[in-house]
Every structure is written in structure tokens, then in C-alpha cells.
């Protein structure tokens, strides 16, 4: 809910442990790790989150998104609470919500990612206009004849 209110710093504090835990639960259910995140065959050695995710058998594109956009080097500063509190945390929380939608779609049978992207598609034209505002022509520009390829020099 904090993300919906754009309180991204607060949201990241709960989103990261939540996501980590949700993927970890699947890892434990698939007997990839123990309940306390250790290697199944080496119960004294902790398995890194990224290694565990790569063993879950996710689709390649979802795995890449989770491991390199939400977690990994891009996400670690936010996972441990020392990332950029402005644009960076916004990016990570929004990507985290997309990953959560992917988790729900993959493991809970809820087409959350499809709904999310369908709604994003509706917001896309406005988002493009915000990022690259359309160039508005003045009346004078509209009246001006099209430029030719000839150089703008006056031959006397």
C-alpha cells in the first residue's frame, strides 16, 4: 500500500523481505534449500538468494528479471536498506511489485502479471508523452514551407 502512496522507502522495507521469503518458500517446498535457507546437501552452508532462484526452474525471462533487476547488484543496496532514497528506490519497489505479480502468476495461479502489463499498456501513451513530450508546432512553424536539402546560402 505504501507503494500506491508513493512511499517507496517505507515500501522497500517490507517488499524485499516479503519477496525474498516468498521465493524462499518455493525453494524450500521444492527441496532446493532447507527451511532456514541452507543448501539441502550442506545444511551448514547458506545458499545465496540468486543461486536459489536460478534453481527454481522459472522461465528464463522471469529469472533474469528477478536476479538482475530486482535482486543482484541492482537490488542489494535496497535489500539492505542503503540505496538511493529517491529515483533508485522508486525503480526497485516498482520492479519488486512486478516481480510479486510474476510470483503470483507462476505459483498461485493468479494472472497478476498479465493484468499488470495489460494495464501498463493502457498507461503507455501518457507515459511516453511524459518521458518524451511531443513537440508542439507554433503557427509560424506550421505555415513555413518544408525545408529543402539545398544549403541555406544565398547565391549572388
Amino acid at each position, binding site marked *: 500500500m505504501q507503494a500506491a502512496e508513493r512511499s517507496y522507502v517505507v515500501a522497500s522495507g517490507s517488499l524485499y523481505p516479503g519477496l525474498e521469503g516468498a521465493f524462499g518458500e518455493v525453494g524450500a517446498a521444492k527441496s532446493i534449500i532447507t527451511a532456514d535457507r541452507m543448501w539441502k546437501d550442506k545444511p551448514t552452508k547458506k545458499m545465496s538468494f540468486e543461486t536459489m532462484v536460478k534453481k527454481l526452474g522459472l522461465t528464463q*525471462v522471469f529469472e533474469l528479471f528477478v536476479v538482475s533487476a530486482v535482486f543482484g547488484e541492482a537490488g542489494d543496496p535496497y535489500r539492505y536498506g542503503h540505496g538511493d532514497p529517491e529515483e533508485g528506490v522508486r*525503480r526497485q519497489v516498482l520492479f519488486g511489485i512486478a516481480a510479486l505479480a510474476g510470483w503470483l502468476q507462476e505459483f498461485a495461479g493468479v494472472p497478476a502479471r498479465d493484468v499488470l502489463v495489460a494495464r501498463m499498456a493502457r498507461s*503507455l501513451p501518457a507515459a511516453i508523452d511524459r518521458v518524451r513530450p511531443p513537440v508542439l508546432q507554433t503557427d509560424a512553424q506550421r505555415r513555413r514551407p518544408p525545408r529543402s536539402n539545398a544549403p541555406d546560402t544565398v547565391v549572388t
Partner: protein
Amino acid sequence: MRSALGLGEPAWVDTVRKMSEGLAGPQNLRLALGNVGFASDIAAYTGLRKSIAENLRVPRLFGIESPVAALLRMPVMPFDISETLRRYTGEPVWEFFEAMQEAGLVAGRWERQALWYLLSRFGPYELRRLAPLTRAEVEAVVLDALEAVVADGELVPALRTRGRAGATSRELPPHPARPHAVAGGGALLRGSERLALSRA
């Protein structure tokens, strides 16, 4: 499997079990959920082009296939035959081909990137709008669109409700001190509790 909080077996465990048994891998799961987005558009494009080629009824000269029909059957056009397509198929289909070509360029640029996870579900008309943008601008557009969806006040509550319904077999009241932790459903809460326990 019982959760750390003593809840019953969540619904998603069944999905994991089926995946382990090879009954419902991610691909099958996706098929069951409906194949939407760019992949199906590509399939439609290929199928459409094939059917146009088959319906051209260009006479075979001395047993040699029409070059246009042969070109249309190719998975990738070797050169721009937009004008030919426009002549044979009419404006709307030609526009679709053009959208597919531009979308294909965007796909080629992004399909090995993490953001393709979201972009791959856009249709060709959305993807082609991203064609003139730089990489940084595409990421900014994706984040802007994501933020608009998250902030509209519908999706996040829906994720809470559906996530909770899908992830727990018994209702778990939100913890008053940390209601946000339930946002993704019981498994998120259970997972974070387990994580907290393992870190303690």
C-alpha cells in the same frame, strides 16, 4: 507442508508439486493461463502471412512457385516488400505488417534484457511506440506506466486479496503492526517470518 505459523497447505504448494512431477511446468502453466502478448502476435503474423501466400492463387509458371508467395512464406523478409504487401493485402494488413516490423526491431534490442519480462507481454502496437526511444527513455516509460498502475488504487488491493486467497488455505488477519507485510499474500508473510527467524 505446514507453514511456520501453523497454517494449512497453501494453494501454490500444489503448483510446485505438479511442477516437480512434470505435470505443469511453467510453460504448461502459461498455456493454461492463456497465451497473450507478443509471442501470440508473432504467431498470428506468421500464420497470416502464410495464409495470404496460400490464397494468392498466383499461377505456377512451368512448375515454379511465384516469388511473392515464396517470400511471404519466409519467416524473415530478406528485404522490404511493404509496397508489394500493400498492393496485395490492403491498408489495414499492411499497417499490421509495418507494426510487426518495428516491434521486431524493439524485440531484437530488448529480448536479452531483464526488462523484456514486462515488454514481451506488450502487443506490437505498444512495442512499436518504443522504437524511437533510447534505452534510458524506455526504462523511464516502463517505470512511469508501472507507477500509474500501482498508484491507481485498484491493482495493489487486488494483489492483496488474490494473493491472500491463492496463497493461504485459511484466512490470516493482517498483523496490526505491519499490515503491508500481507500485501503479497500469506506466503509473503510466512516467507518473511521464516526469513526473520533464520536471521535471528
